[in-house]
């Protein structure tokens, strides 16, 4: 197991495959805890109202039920939620976080119990000062409860299947008509440059207009320097269209002669 600089835990499986888990930072964890604290307050307030009705029958019984229920909710909320939702509470669901075993193995019930009971120390002397400090100092953003339970909190991975068809397929590509040049382009382009171009296309809508123009101008210049296509193939192509056509050539082997 090794640690990257970018808040990511890298795990190597026995098969030699490396996968990364994006670790949740102290701020997102604190916000999730804030949501959870609000949920606990709301639940106990509702309970108070409900038990108020029970007080009409017996005030002593109502007080007893409230004392026990408050205790069970405040201690059991995290345990119950994380067990039922496999590592998530309401706050963690809102902030898209999840508790995981530090070795990415299955989260055990005892780990959930230990990390939640250790909260008593993490909360000291108030507002998660001990836990927050431990979280900031820890390489894997672990509070003391996480250290004891061998758990980490990660940002939820997207699980939707990727769809590149929309990006790379179905549009006319004037460069594809020059097979000898496209073959040369593939030969001269490094995988890293190809990945940068594809990433830029996938994230183009997230960019500011000026930055988008500059990025695609730079990329287009780079690819033009590798292979020069005839003027009739590239005229009226913007830099972004040029990069899109180049990327399609790099990532789609099936030749098309539209």
């Amino acid at each position, binding site marked *: 197991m090794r640690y990257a600089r970018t808040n990511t835990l890298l*795990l190597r*499986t*026995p*098969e*030699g*495959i*490396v*996968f990364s*888990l994006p670790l949740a930072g102290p701020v997102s964890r604190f916000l999730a805890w804030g949501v959870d604290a609000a949920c606990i307050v709301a639940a106990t307030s509702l309970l108070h109202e409900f038990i108020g009705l029970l007080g009409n029958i017996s*005030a*002593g*019984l109502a*007080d*007893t039920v409230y*004392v*026990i229920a*408050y*205790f069970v909710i405040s*201690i059991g909320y995290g345990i119950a939620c994380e067990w039922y939702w*496999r590592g998530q509470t309401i706050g963690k669901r809102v902030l898209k976080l999840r508790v*995981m*075993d*530090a*070795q*990415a*193995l*299955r989260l*055990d*019930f*005892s780990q959930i*119990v*230990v990390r939640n*009971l*250790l*909260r*008593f*120390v993490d909360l000291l002397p108030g507002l998660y000062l001990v836990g927050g400090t431990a979280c900031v100092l820890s390489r894997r953003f672990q509070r*003391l409860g996480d*250290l*004891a339970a*061998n758990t980490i909190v990660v940002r939820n*991975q*997207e*699980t939707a*299947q*990727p769809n*590149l*068809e929309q990006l*790379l397929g179905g549009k006319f590509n004037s460069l594809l008509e020059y097979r000898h040049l496209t073959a040369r382009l593939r030969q001269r*382009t490094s*995988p890293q440059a*190809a*990945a940068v171009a*594809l*990433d830029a296309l*996938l994230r183009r809508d997230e960019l500011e207009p000026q930055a988008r123009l500059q990025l695609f101008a730079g990329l287009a210049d780079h690819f033009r320097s590798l292979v020069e296509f005839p003027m009739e193939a590239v005229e009226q192509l913007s830099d972004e269209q040029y990069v899109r056509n180049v990327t399609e050539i790099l*990532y*789609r*082997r*099936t030749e098309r002669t539209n």
Partner: protein
Amino acid sequence: MILDLTRFLAEERKHWTELEATLDRIDRNPDQRMQLTELLKFHELYERASADLAKIETFASEPEIRRYLEGLVARAYSEIHETREKQTRLNPWRWFVERFPQTFRRHLGPFWLALAVTIAGCVFGGVAIRIDPEAKQVIMPFPGLRDDPSERVRREESSKEDRLAGHKSTFAAQLMTHNTQVAIFTMALGITWGAGTMITLFYNGVILGAVAVDYVYAGQARFLLGWLLPHGAIEIPAILLGGQAGFLLASALIGWGSRKPRRQRLREIAPDLTTIIFGAGILLIWAGIVESFLSQYHQPVIPYALKIAFGATELVALTLFLARSGAAAEKRTK
């Protein structure tokens, strides 16, 4: 070489979908056991997704597919490589009468340490109150304990009214929750390499020793036993169990005499910590009920002999329970 992503996606997508469906099925029904053929298929799909991830990282660096595959491989990895036994449905009775005492016996060292620290605190508190009676004002946590013991006994025994009337169950609930918090806190402080657990147990011992010596030297030993023994026979061992769990956590952190990595040591003790602290919690429910409904009533309402006999019986029963319960089942599994 750059990967032909579209063809790669077209060929592999169906296998990813199948793996995702298998993982969703496991999520929905974790207790279900797979047939051998299903397991082999699951393993094949995992290896295929892993290989696809390696291909993407080597030949394409495409972030969206990589993120998706990483998520898929991470989920499958946790199921394939987990060697701990899957949790079966819990039988609460068997857990309490078998697993809880068995777990207690497996970790007797930390329990004796917790007991020794508490006794050391008792001795310190007793000696402190004898050589400096003024220390009572500092040591005793509640104003009621700072009074003259003989005066309190006279007041309690002559009282005609039930001061807990109508509030006994609420008082019991407050005692249960407070004492359970103390036990959890004692366990949780084990994360300070045991220092916090030791301080908590020692301080509890100091109060207990000071109160005991104060009442014994005031000639109120019988009142003391009748007052403390019915609930203390369960409550004090339950707090010691919290201490046992705290020292167990500390020993896993420190790792004396163990060549295992810290993570593995902590992973191994987590189920035992959970069992001990839940067991202590159950004992404290009983202790809270006894303290509220029995301990607070003195002679002539309830004779001291009866209360002392009750407390002594509880102590013997608890000792036998922790020492013997589940031993036969333990032998069978060995």
